[in-house]
């Protein structure tokens, strides 16, 4: 009970942070999941980690409501009619957001907000005012950077107004993705890049690639997670590839023995989490989101996360020379691919009857890490401080992106000189997608808002928190941890001279 009193007496957490922490503490006082010995051993060793989802899953980790349906029908449970104008539209959405569960209790997906609002745009300046209030409301009440909005893949007036508003507002929340496909003109893409250079968003998602895997109705939630709209992901558990590597005597033992064994254990653990959520928690029987058709169990899957590929590969390569290491040496890069290919093969062996959105498969996810990860890199990323030149970096990243439908991405920090030539970045993004990259994020070296690993935080807020001052957004705490442990502020500045 000491931890509960600690939460109550904490003088930096806001009231809302305390309530959420207390709920988590209550959940974690239970012990309801049957966890096998082997799984528990992996958990104790930090090889398998459920990212603080809690001991008794009572809501899916990621929910992507069908907001289009909500806009069409309103909600009986919430007593909301179909909106008639932009003010009713944003009001309805803002109300629904407060009723979308997640692990953080903030919605991780707030919809394809441009196409949702487009039918209500009559007077552009009035719509701009409404959109600014809408986005500000999200930032100040959904105080969690994993709250993610999408725009695109069509060119809409609403989309352009949203970009204009974000450029002006400079808010960390919501996270924003532009679904980038053939219907996005260069002109709109340049607008998006100019916005990202000011406020670190939107990121660019390879629309063709996501559509091939999920169909038209996919959304990008949380950091960069591709999932089906009207569904989501029950859970995300992650595998620490580096820590597992340290137990193997060599790379072939790792690939042939240790990896299959760990994947089996993790799939078992995920099965238990999904089973409890679906069969015991009553979530799908009690949520009005299900009753009103805003989500359906048929559209859910679950995410099999991994991280630390770079450190795993470098452990086996065991060379002090950067030229030999992951992201640089051919042998290291080939080994990285071999490990991921095998991981995919192993994960595909397990079927979960509740993962209907992905034909029973668990979806691979390159997990971005957590604030306490020290000296280990997200997903398949090259360690910060060891990045190669950008062309080499892009070609390297592109090789890994196809394996991870439920999310992978790389972040590029550009020098201020590129602000005079946004086409430069558009060329790079187009090339990256041609080469098979799935998700591309950028920010400018002088920007206050920066992308930490997948989410956005203001540098100025991190500094405030570091001085012991209270901050509104809970993700600033994570940002501060990542700045200290993962040297996020040292990410290479891309400047071509």
């Amino acid at each position: 009970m000491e931890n509960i009193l600690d939460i109550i007496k904490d003088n930096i957490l806001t009231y809302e942070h305390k309530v959420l922490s207390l709920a988590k503490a209550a959940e974690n006082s239970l012990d309801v999941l049957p966890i096998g010995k082997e799984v528990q051993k992996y958990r104790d060793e930090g090889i398998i980690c459920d990212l603080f989802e809690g001991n008794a899953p009572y809501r899916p980790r990621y929910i992507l409501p069908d907001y289009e349906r909500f806009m069409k029908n309103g909600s009986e449970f919430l007593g909301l009619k179909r909106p008639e104008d932009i003010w009713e539209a944003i009001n309805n959405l803002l109300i629904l957001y407060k009723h979308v569960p997640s692990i953080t209790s903030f919605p991780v997906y707030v919809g394809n907000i441009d196409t949702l609002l487009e039918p209500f745009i009559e007077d552009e300046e009035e719509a701009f005012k409404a959109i600014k209030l809408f986005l500000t409301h999200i930032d100040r009440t959904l105080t969690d950077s994993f709250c993610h909005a999408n725009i695109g893949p069509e060119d809409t007036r609403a989309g352009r107004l949203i970009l204009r508003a974000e450029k002006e507002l400079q808010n960390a929340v919501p996270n924003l993705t532009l679904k980038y496909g053939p219907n996005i003109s260069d002109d709109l893409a340049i607008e998006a890049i100019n916005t990202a250079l000011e406020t670190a968003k939107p990121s660019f998602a390879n629309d063709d690639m996501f559509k091939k895997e999920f169909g038209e109705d996919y959304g990008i939630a949380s950091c960069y997670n591709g999932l089906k709209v009207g569904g989501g992901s029950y859970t995300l558990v992650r595998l620490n590839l580096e820590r597992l590597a340290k137990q193997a005597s060599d790379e072939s033992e790792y690939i042939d023995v240790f990896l299959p064994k760990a994947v089996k254990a993790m799939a078992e653990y995920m099965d238990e989490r999904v089973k409890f959520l679906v069969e015991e928690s009553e979530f799908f029987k009690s949520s009005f989101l299900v009753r009103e058709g805003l989500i359906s169990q048929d559209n859910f899957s679950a995410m099999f996360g991994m991280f630390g590929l770079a450190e795993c590969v470098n452990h086996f390569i065991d060379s002090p020379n950067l030229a030999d290491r992951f992201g640089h040496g051919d042998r290291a890069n080939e080994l990285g691919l071999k490990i991921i290919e095998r991981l995919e093969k192993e994960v595909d062996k397990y079927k979960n009857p509740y993962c209907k959105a992905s034909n029973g498969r668990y979806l691979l996810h390159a997990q971005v890490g957590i604030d306490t990860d020290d000296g280990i890199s997200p997903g398949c990323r090259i360690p910060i401080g060891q990045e190669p030149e950008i062309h080499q970096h892009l070609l390297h990243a592109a090789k890994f992106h196809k394996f991870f439908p439920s999310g992978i991405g790389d972040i590029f920090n550009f020098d201020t000189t590129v602000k005079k030539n946004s086409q430069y970045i558009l060329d790079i993004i187009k090339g990256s997608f041609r080469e098979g990259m799935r998700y591309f994020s950028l920010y400018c070296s002088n920007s206050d808002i920066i992308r930490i690993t997948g989410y956005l935080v203001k540098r100025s807020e991190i500094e405030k928190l570091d001085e012991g001052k209270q901050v509104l957004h809970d993700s600033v705490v994570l940002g501060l941890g990542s700045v200290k442990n993962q040297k996020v502020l040292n990410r290479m500045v891309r400047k071509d001279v």
Partner: protein
Amino acid sequence: MCKGLVNRILPFSSVDGPGNRTVIFLQGCNFNCLYCHNPETIGKCRACGKCVSLCPYDTLSIVAGQVKWHEEGCKYCDRCLEICTENSSPRPVKMTVDEVAEKILAFKSFISGITISGGECTLQCGFITSLFKRVKEIGLTTFLDTNGSIALWQESELISLMDMAMVDLKSYDPKEHRVLTCMDNEVVIENIKYLAKVNKLYEVRTVIVPETLNNYYNVDMISKLIVSLNSSIRYKLIRYRPKGVRLELIDSYIPRDEMMNELVKLAAGNGCENVIVV
């Protein structure tokens, strides 16, 4: 097969024309600008061998009477450049069009095109014409970054294969131009007029050097020249930076923002529609 003497190839550049461009820097220049920030691209190696014995990483040797650079071990400490009395470098290599094209193809997905720069690239006219031809076949745009000292109106094949050019007009005053670069500016100005006429002038550039050049006069006259040709041609004003320069030749400093703002105002006031500062 015609070969070019290539100083280096920069895979991605955001400052050498529109979009992302691969830049091929050729070795050798007919100007010797006081403020040159990469003087090692001016001269040609005479294989005197001074740098070979001084390289701390043993990356240089003499092979068949030529200095050979072994890239693998090079730490880019630039000792070889410091010691060179010819404003040259042991690093440039002779490359065929195919060899350069192979490098470009590796970046093709990511770039709008290529820019050939220098040194002064038009001194190797045959090579750049062949390279442009090849790059056009690949489907990329071709830009030239030149000091404008070679009569481009006489190079019809090159110009037909080139999309656009960026030309330095370092000083409008012929005397000052001669002091600064060792050459006259008459051909440069003719080239600017010619390229504008054939709609192939992307940008005119002037480096602003406080207390060395007649900056206000130059910007005034050059912007008027641009407006007389086509006021939408971009005029780029470049701040002098004492990086990489031969400090024994020049004593100046980075111009302040106020000065740059005044110059932009001056050019814009003359009717230039697209003035940028870097």
